[in-house]
């Protein structure tokens, strides 16, 4: 009941609705991602209650992912990468005059996917946390290393560039006073760096500034003069959903499972789920010409992945995707330190967070259906005209976290770095996870080394730590073994 009282607070409900609208606008604009929406929202959540802050993040992310379907269907330009997997079919149906059916189905499947993902989160996370309570610093060390490694292999086609991106992120996390001795590292005697590089300005730079620069330099900034007006027939939407319930359910469960993997987010979930639907399709010849199977599978999967990503984030403090990486930062700021003990120390708050997940995903349907009617108006805005106020929001948001202009410098530096790296096919997700988890990995490593008197073998002595350590080392060594094997076979 305490959780219900926390969620029913008017401030929480108002933040939830406003975050939904904000997420819809940013998600519906091609090229602006759900992560960018969340990154820009963080400075505002800083001033909200913990529940209102998390509710806003969940609502903005869920709505932005759904809203990405709108320009995909109307213009064949996916609003977010998570909508790209089924954009051809959605656009083909729009050409056939079924835009209302496509967008309504997107909203309904996104809601179902989000709710199924949340059910898995609510049922699975406490069980996993109960198990994780037995973990010591050794197990957490290897688990964090495994999570980071996983992000390299899952989030990119080029693991070498993923590894470099990850290492840069971890290196950024080492800036500041050392955990064991308080020795100042890489601070250039600048007091602003003693506490390390501020996480939120760094993320705003990486996801907002990088995208702003790309949009200004981009060529496809044309507005849409007349977007097709969507007529929504609820009967047809429900019938289509019922006819494809297997794809909805499979997409939701697959999306949740993929979301749980560190580094794999809604984009990958959507592609894999659509790919599976294609392989199992009864009408493979209609793909790309208006097949609903890929649309329902993909839009269920991308929203369920958002909820799935919270499982490792809450239980192990290992983010499942870039959005939960940002959310972990917010949880720390709000005093809700993620990890298995959060289920004991902050049970009321946590169950309120779960309620927010349900509420945000259920709100997505009515807000989404209403917003679809105004989608033409949003799409008529030239994207580059939004960049000046978004730049100012990024600047003011970076300042607001610590009330210092140094945050702006961090935002600019990491924004330019992220832009250059991404333009050259270096993925950003491993870098973000490196920044988030770098400090944690170092803390666990140093604690473990101190408790084993510097014995490396001691890191493997506990049974679970030994298993996790062996798996981690095997994953690290696998590329070399494969390379040697390929060389030996000529």
């Amino acid at each position, binding site marked *: 009941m305490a959780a219900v009282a926390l969620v029913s607070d008017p401030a929480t409900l108002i933040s939830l609705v406003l975050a939904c609208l904000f997420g819809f606008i940013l998600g519906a604009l091609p090229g602006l991602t759900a992560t960018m929406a969340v990154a820009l929202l963080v400075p505002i959540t800083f001033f909200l209650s913990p529940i209102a802050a998390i509710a806003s993040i969940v609502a903005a992310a869920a709505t932005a992912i759904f809203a990405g379907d709108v320009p995909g269907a109307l213009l064949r330009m996916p609003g977010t990468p998570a909508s790209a997997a089924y954009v051809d079919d959605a656009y083909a149906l729009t050409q056939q005059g079924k835009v209302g059916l496509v967008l309504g189905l997107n909203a309904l499947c996104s809601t179902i996917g989000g709710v199924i993902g949340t059910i898995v989160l609510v049922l699975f996370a406490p069980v996993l946390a109960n198990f994780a309570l037995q973990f010591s610093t050794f197990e957490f060390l290897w688990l964090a290393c495994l999570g980071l490694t996983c992000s390299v292999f899952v989030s990119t086609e080029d693991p070498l560039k993923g590894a470099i991106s990850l290492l*840069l992120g971890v*290196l950024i996390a080492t800036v500041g006073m050392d955990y064991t001795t308080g020795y100042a590292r890489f601070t250039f005697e600048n007091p602003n760096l003693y506490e390390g590089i501020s996480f939120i300005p760094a993320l705003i730079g990486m996801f907002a500034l990088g995208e702003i620069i790309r949009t200004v330099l981009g060529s496809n900034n044309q507005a849409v003069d007349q977007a097709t007006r969507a007529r929504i027939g609820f009967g047809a939407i429900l019938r289509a959903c019922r006819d494809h319930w297997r794809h909805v359910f499979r997409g939701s469960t697959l999306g949740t499972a993929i979301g749980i993997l560190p580094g794999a987010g809604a984009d990958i979930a959507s592609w894999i789920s659509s790919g599976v639907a294609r392989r199992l399709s009864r009408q493979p010849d209609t793909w790309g010409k208006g097949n609903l199977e890929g649309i329902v599978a993909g839009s269920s999967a991308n929203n369920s992945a958002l909820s799935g990503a919270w499982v490792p984030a809450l239980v192990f403090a290992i983010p499942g995707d870039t959005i939960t990486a940002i959310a972990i930062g917010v949880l720390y700021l709000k005093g809700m330190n993620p990890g298995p003990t959060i289920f004991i120390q902050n049970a009321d708050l946590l169950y309120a967070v779960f309620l927010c997940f349900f509420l945000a995903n259920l709100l997505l349907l009515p807000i989404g259906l209403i917003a679809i009617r105004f989608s033409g108006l949003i799409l008529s805005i030239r994207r580059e005209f939004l960049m000046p106020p978004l730049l100012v929001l990024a600047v003011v948001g970076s*300042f607001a976290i610590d009330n210092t202009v140094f945050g702006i410098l961090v935002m600019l530096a990491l924004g330019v770095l992220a832009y250059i790296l991404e333009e050259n096919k270096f993925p950003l997700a491993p870098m973000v996870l490196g920044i988030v988890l770098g400090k944690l*990995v170092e803390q666990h490593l140093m604690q473990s080394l101190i408790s084993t008197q510097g014995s490396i073998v001691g890191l493997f002595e506990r049974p679970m730590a030994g298993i996790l350590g062996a798996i981690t080392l095997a994953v690290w060594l696998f590329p070399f073994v494969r390379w040697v094997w390929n060389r030996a076979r000529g």
Partner: protein
Amino acid sequence: MRIGDGFFGLFFAIFAAGVLLHVRSFPTLPGQFYGPGFFPAVVLVALLFCGAALIVRSVQQSSEGNFNVSAPAWRVSPRKSVGAAMLLVFGLLFYLAGDWIGFVPLTFGCLLILYLWLGRGIVWSFGLSVALTFFIGGLFRGILRVPLPEGLLSALW
């Protein structure tokens, strides 16, 4: 900006080697091999290794390796590149002069110049810049109570 993989590999390898030399000056815990430099050193060795691997892969892909640096966006549209540079300059201006000019005048000036640069008329740009400045200022200063630097406007409040 397109930078060849070989160039990136070389940069990361040299960077990692340089910082590794710096990390060697960090102290260790008494009687132990580890200290504040241990974890960064592990990360830097891995980065050095990955940089070298990127160079090797680049050379394997083409005999000279890919060490090119190009900026296609600048060639295709210098105007857009100047626009992107302006965004960064305005960001830097907030950092360097935000405290004494103040965020409100800077926000207004930045929005006005950028909208004019994007080709909007003076009345449209002025009106929207004023509205957005009030909205962003009101949101952060009024509702969220962020102490945005007042700068030149401090005499007015």
